[in-house]
Structures are given as structure tokens and as C-alpha cells.
């Protein structure tokens, strides 16, 4: 059993809805409504779900870019959910984030060298000019860019190359955890596979752990060890990827997998087409969040919310069918 890096316990994020002249809080958008999971050192946890399911909010809370409304986030045993900004700042170099859009994550006015060197400056690393330059060159080589490119600006690079720059910057301070939020979603398929392969290589080389957030099931399956499926702010299933993809237990996971188009011309198993849209997280249904679209729902589902529990070893699901 390897060491635990991150333990998330019952985190919630409610965004207030303000309306009227006095901007009174008239309700809450329950973006994340009690999510718990663990991440071991060197592990990749994929989080999948459709828009509005709270996967990005979860990622942002782990980075403490967003303050959780409730719950705790233990990073190597320390609760970062309640940590003061000062002590959090020292820890921040251990967890880094890579976003979807490499165009907006890089300051257009800075050179690549300055962008990658910025983490050293922010974290007051006592490095000389030439040491920083050396580090930048090493990082550029690690992510497959030429060291000569370090004096150029982000707009001179393609989308895939920019994402490499973002990854180089995230790696600068030897982080332990990288949260990648839709990191390859904006890229063309041929570039997407380059970045995925790079991330897999870096993980081995730097002994990284990833939380890989994406709506793309095949990408998540490719890169993850374990996968969590979110729906309307809840984790509905969490399992090692083989188990999850070979035998999905939650009806939502089942529908999601059957809806994903596969690049193959084969007769597929019967397709489950869900009716309707995802309900609004401002007004989530009572009981199980999925019961309004679930083909297998029964009376109890509308009454109470099922808890995530282990039904097969290591395979957790939140559904009354099990």
C-alpha cells in the first residue's frame, strides 16, 4: 500500500444566488455537494462528467483557488481547506494546475523564459540568473521544446506547444500533484496524443500524481488508474479504471459510456439514450440527483440520496440498486 497524498472528505461548494435590489442571497447553486475521495502518491485519478457536474469546481477547491463551503482537503496530512493564506503559500509549490486553454493561461507580453521562471521568483528561490536560465532550458527540453525558443512570446507557438509551455511552468518547482482541467480538450487529436504521452512520461520521471479532469471518457480511460464519475455535484461512482469501464455499476455511468461514440464500425451493445437535460444545480432534484433521468429509478430514489459505498472491492457506487 503506497502512501496517501491527498484525502478529500465531504467537500461542498455552494455559490450564493443574489437577486433583488439589496442583493440578498435567495438560494444556492450547489456546484459540489459532498465529494470524498483519496489519491495515492504516483496515482492518476480521472474525474469525468458532463458540464455543470462540478468536476472543475472540485479541481479548483483542491488547488484552493476556490474556498470550499464545507469539508476538508488533507494534502500530506495537512488540511489545506482551512489553512491561512500565509502557510498555504509555502505549500502551493507542491500542487500545480494545467488549464484547458493555453491561450489564456500564458501572459502574451512575457517571453517563454520569463513565464517559466516566474514560479522561481514568486517562491523566492535563491537562484542566480544563470541557474534560472539553466533550469528553464532543462524544463523546455523535458517538455519537448527547443531551448532556443525561450526568448520568443506565446503567440509564436501553436496550441500544442503552448500547452507544453504551461506544463513546463507547472513542473518548475517539482510539484507532487498536478490538477489538469481539460488539459487536452482544446487540442487537435494528433496534438492531443502528443500531450497525453508527454504527461504519462513526466509522471514516471517526476513521480507525479495527477487529478485529470475531462469530459472525454476515452482520454480519461487512457491516462487514469482510477476514475470517478460526477453528476450534478455528486460523485456517483469511483473505481479502478478496468472495473469501471468493463462493468459500470451506476446507471449514469452506463448511459455515459454507451453514449460515447467509438471510432469503430462495429455493432455495439444496446445504446441507452437518456431523455432530457441535466437538472439545474440551483434546484437539484430531491433524493438521488440522477433519478429524474434514470431508466432504472424506483420510489426510494426520489426520497433519499444514496451514499457512495463499496459494493465490489475498491469499487464504490452511490445507487440503491446495490
Amino acid at each position, binding site marked *: 500500500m503506497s502512501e496517501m497524498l491527498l484525502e478529500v472528505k465531504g467537500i461542498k461548494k455552494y455559490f450564493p444566488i443574489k437577486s433583488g435590489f439589496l442583493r440578498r442571497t435567495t438560494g444556492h447553486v450547489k456546484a459540489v455537494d459532498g465529494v470524498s475521495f483519496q489519491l495515492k502518491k504516483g496515482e492518476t485519478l480521472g474525474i469525468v462528467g458532463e458540464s455543470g457536474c462540478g468536476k472543475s469546481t472540485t479541481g479548483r477547491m483542491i488547488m484552493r483557488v476556490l474556498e470550499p463551503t464545507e469539508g476538508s482537503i488533507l494534502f500530506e496530512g495537512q488540511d489545506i481547506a482551512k489553512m491561512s493564506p500565509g502557510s498555504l503559500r509555502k505549500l502551493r509549490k507542491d500542487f500545480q494546475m494545467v488549464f484547458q486553454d493555453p491561450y489564456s493561461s500564458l501572459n502574451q507580453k512575457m517571453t517563454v523564459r520569463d513565464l517559466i521562471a516566474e514560479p522561481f521568483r514568486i517562491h523566492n528561490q535563491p537562484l542566480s540568473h544563470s541557474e534560472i536560465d539553466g533550469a528553464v532550458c532543462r524544463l523546455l527540453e523535458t517538455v519537448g521544446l527547443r531551448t532556443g525558443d525561450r526568448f520568443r512570446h506565446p503567440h509564436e507557438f501553436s496550441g500544442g506547444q503552448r500547452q507544453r509551455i504551461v506544463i513546463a511552468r507547472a513542473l518548475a518547482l517539482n510539484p507532487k500533484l498536478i490538477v489538469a482541467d481539460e488539459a487536452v480538450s482544446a487540442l*487537435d487529436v*494528433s496534438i492531443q*496524443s*502528443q500531450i497525453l504521452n508527454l504527461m504519462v512520461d513526466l509522471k514516471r520521471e517526476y513521480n507525479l500524481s495527477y487529478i485529470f479532469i475531462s469530459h472525454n*471518457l476515452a*482520454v480519461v480511460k487512457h491516462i487514469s488508474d482510477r476514475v470517478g464519475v460526477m453528476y450534478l455535484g455528486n460523485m456517483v461512482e469511483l473505481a479502478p479504471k478496468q472495473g469501471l469501464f468493463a462493468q459500470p455499476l451506476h446507471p449514469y455511468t452506463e448511459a*455515459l459510456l454507451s*453514449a460515447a461514440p*467509438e*471510432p469503430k464500425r462495429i455493432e455495439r451493445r444496446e445504446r441507452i439514450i437518456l431523455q432530457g437535460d441535466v437538472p439545474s444545480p440551483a434546484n437539484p432534484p430531491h433524493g438521488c440527483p440522477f433519478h429524474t433521468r434514470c431508466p432504472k429509478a424506483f420510489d426510494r430514489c426520489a426520497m433519499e440520496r444514496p451514499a457512495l459505498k463499496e459494493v465490489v472491492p475498491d469499487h464504490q457506487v452511490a445507487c440503491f440498486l446495490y
Partner: protein
Amino acid sequence: MGKKLMEIRDLKTYFQTKNALIRAVDGIDLDVEEGQIVCIVGESGSGKSVTSLSIMRLLPGPKGRITSGEVRFEGKDLSKLSEKEMDAVRGDRISMIFQEPMTALNPVMKVGKQIEEVLLRHRKVTKSEAKSKAIETLRFVGVPRAEHIVNEYPHQLSGGMRQRVMIAMAMVCEPRLLIADEPTTALDVTIQIQVLELMKKMRDERKTSIILITHDLGVVAEMADHVVVMYAGQVVESTGADAIFEKPMHPYTQALLASIPSLEEDKEVLYSIPGTVPSAGAFPKGCRFADRCSSAQPSCTEEMPELREVLPEHFVRCALVPNGGAA
């Protein structure tokens, strides 16, 4: 083989910028049969969207224009029609749907009105006839409570519903051809499949031909009868959908298929195509894929290969694929 609805021959669409001539679409051939779904696949910059805008004559002039070639549709060459004649074709005989329904719909107009507008423009109908036709069409595309939805504004609808409204607008005049440019890219998978099923229903029940433009090979496998693979403004492979997935012949198509992760099989390492797409202002002299191709020969950079029929109905633009296939 079905009757040909559209034949595109050697279509070239160039954009003149201050510094360069951008050959966005550089001589493509494309046939669409009646009731057929043709998928155009390619990465960004391959020219797939410019192809559809050229068919619809929606290019941003005067910079972008069809330089040569013809687009034959119902006996006419669309590229030579006057603007007025083209207006009669757009929305009536051929209609188009886009990726982002929110920007394609008018935000300050009720959705019902937007659908009725198409009918009032192209058909001699009264307002009340148009309204009932709009409701009927919304029902066909699976919008619940259609008689209420006609009075709502686009922002009151979800992304999937907006795309259905777009489709309703596109099909209210029962066009012969629907051009769908990345229609499901902005949608979640469970909603995407609803919209794809709807497009199949249009084809099956109304015999509408569809040109579906996408970068997603999963969507291609789901929908296509015929597949056209584009790279750097050219068609590199064109054949039936089964052949594309079972025996792709162009190295680019093969590489593309090898580089996507799959749900059904485990790939240890994904194939990745080195480098990036050449810029449209500076295409190389020879094969445009040569510098990224793993089987490229020195001769590939010298001469541009022709799009050849190497097997019946299977066209490939690669000098290395012998006639009869099996490269």
C-alpha cells in the same frame, strides 16, 4: 448507388491577406448522393469549414473567394449564381447548422419567430400557418412543450435544446441538403447522442442528405456513409465509412486513427504524429503531409501526389499506396 445530389469539382477557395495568399481549400472533389451522410474530417486548419462556407457562398469577401472549380447542385453551379439566386437556395434547398447555437440564434427574438422567418422568406404562407409549421417542426426535433417553447428566447433554453431549435430552423423548409459544421462539439455526450440520432431521423424520414463536418472520429463512425479526410486544404482520402475504419490507406488517416484513445481497447502508448500542420500560407511543394509522415520517401517532398482511385470507390492521395491498395 444513389442519385447524385451535389458534385463538387476542383474547388479552390483562397484568401488574400496583406502578406500571403492563403490556400484554405485547394482543389477538392466531393460527391453527395441523395439521402447520404458524408462526413468531412480533419484537424483545425484543414479547410473543412471553409469548404462548407464555400458551398453556401458565405465567405467573408472580398478577402476570401472561390478562385476556381464548380459546385453542382440540382443542375446549377452554385459558385456562379447571383447573390439573389443564392438567397433562394440558402435556407430552402440547402441549410446549415453551426457549432455554437448561442451565437447563431438571435438572442432578442423568440425562437418561434426565428423559425417562422425562414418560412415567410421562402414560402407563400400566412403567419399563422408559419407558426403551426414551426411548432410541428419543433415537435419533430424532439422539443417538449413545443407550443410554449416558441415563445421563449434562446437564453432560456439549454445547449441541447438550442441546437434542436437550430436544426428545426434548418429543416423547416425541408431542404435537400443539410450542412452541419461541428454540430455536437459544444454538447455533452449524452446530449450529443440525442442530436446525432435526430440527424439520422431526418435522413431516414425526410431523405435529407447531410454533409457533417467534424474532427471527432467517433462521430464519423456513428454517422457516416462516406468519409472524406482533409489535410492542409486537400482531400487525402475519400471512401466508404467501413473502409476508412477497417483499411485506411493514407498514412495520415492511419496515424489519426492510431492517435486517439479508445474505450474498447487499451493502448499502452498512443501514436503521435510529430510536428504540426503546415501553415496555409506556405505549403510545401510536394506532399503536404510528408514532413510528418513516418513512411515518407525523399521523392514525397518533390512532387504533389494525385488523388487516385486505388480500389473501386477508394481514393487516396499518396504516391506510396500502389493501385489495388495493400501498402
